[in-house]
């Protein structure tokens, strides 16, 4: 290769010594921007070097850009020689000679020269030139102050920085700084951003100010790769476990084995159809209720096994709804058009019975402070009681019809009920304001996400509609596939970060969809009767419970064998009883 004037590979990159942040007086070693055989191309502007050449199947990746960010990545990693080699071999310089000069001048602290060089780079936007000049001269100002050259700093401020006419507030701050450099005298606090910073940091800031075609942003390639990983993760339909590390070597894709799909336990304590079940907020308990008028509290043991803890009897009617208190210490249960009972989780004792004479209660919910409860009444009103049973307030009118679902919004200020057949009301019970969700078909039931910002509505046309209720009300997604024509069938959110939607179905299966894509990913057979209700353990994304007309509750989990084979953390004892 002719024309090379140095024996070492030419280094066009600015060298930054590692102790540079401490002292500014010794400038780092600078090698002259090297000439190479392609010196002609160095002089030519970047545009005219076949910039349109593309690589990759899709034809969207420009070769010049790719090589430049690879070179930047090499330098960021510390591979100076390789970086320089790449620039030479490809004939594509990372930065133009002017920019290289500029960067070296910054590192060397040649402020006036660097400001002059900025004007030569050929930036289109005058404002950027001014902003960059400001930042450079600000550094000059600080270094002068630091070196006790107060009058020089003042001169720089007056004659070089002020005329730029940008960042007026900052200019005034610098003025104050000259007068009291310690800064603590003026406002009593020492402000981080007013202290001096390293030249390297200055260079980094300049990289963000100048267009990226002029100066490649720091670690651009790594950023692109991180973006790709994020997208892979979001697209992973079965993503249900915390993944320790993602590999760059293959696209990330979880297999189905992370989603509960194996029956791990069948609970047969109820003597009639099981209508409702729900895990407590901390995932340590499961409560189920049945048309046999019984409510059962189950305990979720550490090894994942579920065992019976309390049988709560007292209701005279089938129990259709359960609500855990915010701290999980208590439970509200509602008999159909009967009374609401409050129980203590630990002892199983019934603490209070809420009734309205002559009327029946149809649903129940806790206020976020756990000190008051709401109940829907058969006369379509909603009542609020304190724990002792004193009625605090009552909202009359078309507030709540026979559907036994009642929820509270994330800010704790809105009551969510089905007020008409095709309408859900979000009722601000303190502000008396109301928002509505209108559907085209009869509403069967609804469920709230854990953060109470989303509502999943089950409709008579066998669709599930997902609504965002934070702020304005927007329909976000629809899910179909399950069967529902006669009964009340419930659905829920679940999995890691509530990435999945699950629902019961009249065809005896559990249905699971990927929330974001709406895709039906699993159907779980096993029950021999309609599945009325599902609940996903909020604390364990690998545990799902289903309640069925076949009088059983099934606990679903992940396939233990496959898990241990993949060398991952096993969920516990494999006690699969053979059901698939």
């Amino acid at each position, binding site marked *: 290769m002719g024309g090379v004037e140095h024996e070492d590979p030419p280094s066009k990159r600015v060298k930054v010594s590692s102790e540079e942040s401490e002292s500014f007086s010794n400038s780092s070693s600078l090698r002259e921007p090297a000439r190479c055989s392609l010196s002609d191309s160095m002089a030519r502007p970047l545009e005219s070097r076949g910039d349109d050449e593309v690589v990759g199947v899709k034809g969207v990746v420009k070769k010049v850009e790719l090589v430049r960010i690879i070179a930047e990545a090499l330098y960021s990693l510390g591979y100076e020689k390789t970086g320089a080699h790449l620039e030479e071999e490809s004939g594509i310089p990372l930065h133009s000679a002017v920019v290289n000069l500029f960067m070296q001048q910054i590192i060397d602290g040649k402020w006036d020269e660097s400001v002059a060089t900025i004007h030569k780079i050929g930036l289109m936007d005058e404002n950027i030139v001014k902003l960059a000049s400001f930042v450079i001269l600000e550094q000059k100002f600080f270094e002068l102050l630091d070196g006790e050259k*107060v*009058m020089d700093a*003042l001169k720089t*401020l*007056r*004659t070089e*920085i*002020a005329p730029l006419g940008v960042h*007026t507030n900052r*200019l*005034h*701050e*610098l*003025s*104050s700084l*000259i*007068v*009291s450099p310690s800064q603590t*005298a*003026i*406002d*009593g606090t020492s402000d981080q951003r007013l202290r001096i910073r390293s030249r390297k940091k200055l260079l980094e800031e300049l990289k963000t100010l100048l267009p990226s075609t002029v100066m490649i942003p720091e670690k651009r390639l790594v950023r692109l790769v991180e973006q790709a990983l994020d997208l892979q993760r979001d697209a992973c339909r079965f993503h249900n476990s915390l993944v320790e590390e993602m590999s760059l070597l293959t696209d990330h894709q979880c297999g189905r084995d992370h989603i509960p799909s194996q029956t791990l336990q069948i609970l047969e304590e109820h003597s009639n159809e099981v209508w409702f079940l729900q895990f407590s907020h901390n995932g340590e308990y499961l409560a189920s209720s049945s048309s046999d008028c019984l409510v059962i509290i189950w305990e979720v043991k550490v090894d994942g096994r579920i065992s019976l803890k309390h049988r709560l009897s007292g209701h005279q009617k089938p129990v259709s709804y359960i609500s855990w208190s915010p701290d999980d210490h208590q439970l509200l249960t509602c008999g159909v058009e009967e009374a609401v009972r409050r129980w203590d989780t630990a002892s199983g004792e019934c603490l209070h019975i809420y009734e309205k004479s002559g009327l029946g209660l149809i649903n129940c919910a806790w206020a976020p402070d756990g000190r008051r409860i709401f109940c829907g009444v058969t006369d379509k009103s909603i009542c609020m009681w304190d724990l002792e049973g004193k009625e605090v307030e009552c909202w009359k009118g078309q507030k709540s019809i026979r559907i036994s679902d009642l929820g509270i919004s994330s800010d704790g200020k809105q009551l969510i009920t089905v007020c008409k057949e095709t309408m859900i009301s979000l009722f601000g019970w303190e502000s008396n304001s109301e928002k509505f969700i209108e559907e085209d078909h009869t509403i069967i039931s609804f469920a709230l996400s854990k953060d109470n910002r989303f509502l999943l509505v089950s409709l008579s046309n066998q669709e599930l509609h997902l609504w965002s209720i934070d702020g304005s009300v927007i329909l976000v997604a629809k899910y179909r596939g399950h069967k529902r024509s006669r009964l009340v069938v419930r659905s829920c959110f679940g999995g890691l970060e509530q990435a999945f939607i699950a629902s019961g179905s009249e065809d005896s299966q559990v249905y699971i969809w990927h929330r974001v894509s709406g895709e039906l990913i699993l159907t779980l057979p096993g029950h021999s009767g309609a599945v009325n209700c599902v609940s996903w353990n909020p604390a364990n994304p690998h545990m799902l419970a289903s309640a069925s007309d076949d009088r059983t509750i099934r606990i679903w989990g992940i396939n233990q064998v496959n898990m241990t084979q993949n060398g991952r953390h096993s969920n516990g004892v494999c006690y699969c009883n053979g059901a698939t």
Partner: protein
Amino acid sequence: MDIDPRICVNVAVNDEDVHNIVLSYLVHNCFTGTMESFIACTGVKQPADHLVDMEKRKRIFHSALDGNALKAIELMEEFTPGLLEKNKDLHFDLLSLHFVRLVCSRRCNEALGFARTKLTPFGKEQRYVEKLEDFMALLAYEEPEKSPMFHLVSLEYRQHVADSLMRAILEHANLPSYSIVERLIQQATVVRQCLSQEFGKDGHQPFSLKDFLKS
């Protein structure tokens, strides 16, 4: 409903009152020369020791107006010792005048030194911090009159400081801080406005002194 001017004619106006009003105005504004002529012409009794005070007040006022704050401060030490210590806002305003003078005459070194020694101590109190920052900002400009802080170097600002200074001195000497004629005008304006509000909501303009004087 406007007051019928003919009613006013029946109110007697005492010459002596008028003389006192004019005299108080002249004394208040330190117009010594005019005051002496007036006294000579009308034979009104000369106010006791006001002459000496007036002269001093006049000098202090004009020093401040010219921006010669150090002179003003010196005179005040003589005339009203202890006033500036009590009235920190005033002290700050005067010092800032001097600072502005230094900056405007491009004596940056001095300005910087003066700011550091005399002005920054005020910065310990929160209420002076913002004012201080505004003044310090002047240092950044080669032409302070054209900077965003131009109002601080203007005549209006000096006037404002001089006026506050006068009021403080008068208060200190237990003299009224507004002359009688000013108070009369203020009162008349308020009364007229109240009347026009009460009796005529439609079509009546608010009381205008200018128009009244012309009529």
